């Protein structure tokens, strides 16, 4: 029997996480029906204690957990989890949130990021799952994708630092005690205003955002136009160049700080590599270090999203492996159409014995 590929499992995890993050709130509402019944406001009455993790926000229960990749807080309905680390940092800087609010969430984020690094980006992030859908459309249309050089990728990463820095500085500058005029409040959550998730996540959740056509104030109008423009760029980035957006995503940037040093490691055995370049061709982030690396055996770097396409397509037995705390989880296997794979041959041998 043919073993499901890594891509199959990745797609399964992506779809499951997307459904949980974006639509899971509906399931929670059904499960908690009769217990969380009021339909307005974060202070809504509920049988669930306010001190617990789940409470009614808007019309449905939502968990604010701030894992490395979650769905946008602007998704009004359906979501089960609302937790973007950029929104947390931005809001906390502006509102001077207390340690009681910030530190538990930072601990959740730190633990999750340390355990699996940017694996979240490749397997869990609902926004990149949408992007992969755009990429599938490109493949269906038979169009080739644009390849970016290492220099371009460095510039994009610099852009991500710029976005993150600008977000944090603006968030700090507009804190309430510094209010001099009302226009400052339009800059609240500055990155969220232009993040494609603010419009994309509510749209796919069948809950159109209320701010998608807000033109009441010049600053608001600017952000409305900028939000739609960014969403267009986001789609174009996946249609033309695979995971181009993931190079400038500030959430991915923060998570990438944990990528090298995480116990989840992509490991290469240099003596088994024939430098065929299959890994470099397959990498959706356009990375070539898996092919080029000769000395170091751990391949985690800031840009790798651990999608494991390289491991899946590597034609050399045990050349690449995914390990957690040095324990192998999966390895590359020699695959040629029509020829039994080593593992399949082993299983056949065991059966015959």
């Amino acid at each position: 029997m043919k073993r499901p590929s890594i891509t199959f499992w990745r797609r399964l995890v992506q779809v499951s996480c997307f459904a949980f993050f974006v639509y899971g709130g509906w399931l929670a509402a059904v499960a908690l029906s009769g217990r969380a019944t009021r339909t307005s406001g974060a202070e809504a009455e509920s049988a669930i204690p306010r001190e617990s993790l789940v409470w009614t926000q808007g019309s449905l229960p939502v968990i604010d957990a701030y894992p490395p990749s979650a769905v946008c807080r602007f998704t009004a309905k359906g979501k089960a989890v609302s937790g973007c680390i950029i929104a947390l940092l931005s809001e906390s800087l502006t509102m001077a949130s207390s340690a009681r609010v910030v530190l538990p969430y930072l601990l959740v984020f730190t633990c999750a990021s340390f355990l699996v690094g940017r694996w979240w980006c490749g397997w869990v992030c609902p926004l990149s799952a949408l992007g992969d859908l755009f990429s599938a459309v490109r493949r269906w249309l038979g169009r080739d994708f644009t390849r970016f050089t290492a220099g371009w990728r460095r510039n994009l990463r610099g852009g991500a630092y710029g976005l993150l820095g600008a977000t944090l500085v603006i968030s700090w500058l507009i804190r309430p005690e510094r209010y001099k005029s009302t226009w400052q409040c339009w800059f609240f959550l500055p990155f969220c205003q232009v993040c494609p998730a603010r419009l994309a996540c509510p749209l796919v959740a069948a809950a159109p955002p209320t701010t998608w056509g807000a033109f009441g104030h010049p600053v608001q109008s600017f952000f409305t136009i900028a939000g739609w423009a960014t969403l267009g760029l986001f789609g174009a980035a996946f249609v033309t160049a695979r995971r181009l957006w993931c190079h400038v995503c500030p959430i991915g940037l923060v998570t990438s700080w944990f990528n090298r040093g995480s116990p989840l490691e992509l490991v290469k055995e240099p003596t088994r590599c024939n430098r065929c370049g299959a890994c470099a061709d397959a990498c959706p982030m356009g990375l070539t270090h898996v092919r080029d690396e000769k000395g170091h055996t751990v391949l985690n770097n800031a840009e790798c999203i651990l999608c494991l396409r390289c491991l899946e397509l590597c034609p050399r037995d045990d050349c690449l492996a995914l390990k957690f705390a040095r324990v192998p989880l999966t390895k590359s296997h020699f695959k040629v159409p029509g020829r039994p794979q080593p593992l399949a041959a082993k299983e056949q041998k065991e059966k015959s014995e």
Partner: protein
Amino acid sequence: MAARTLIEVEAPATGGKYLATGTVELAPGVVTDLKQFRIVSPSDEPGGQVVPFAVLSEVRWPDGSLMAVQLAFPVTAKDVAERRYWLESAAGGPPEQYTGPRDLPVLRFRLSESSEPVEVHLDMDVGQLMVRIDQHPELYYYWYLIPIAGILGLLIWRKVHLQ
């Protein structure tokens, strides 16, 4: 209603018999029947002497329990000089019904804010709520910094020592 509440009566200038009247206000659900309390004169210590009282009027909460009761009980000049009566929780049994004359001079009584808990004749649930005011509750959450720092330290150590 506390288990035992002091009733203060204004001292009259002259002696004789009087009718002390006043209103006892009650929280909802506490007292459903007048049998649940009685008035005691402590003139015959230690147990005191039950004083018969009359109910002039009563108002009830929506749940049927008493909201306010206007009471009247007879006092003598000697008792009033002591000014010490107690409104007590009763263990049960019919209260002493005052059937004497009601055309006596009226004295106003009021319930003192000071009350004295008693162990005997306690026929209602009594609990204590300990409230501690913490001026810096946020400090406890800084303990979260320890595991965060530990994880970041481990991350840096692994980055440095990674092959």
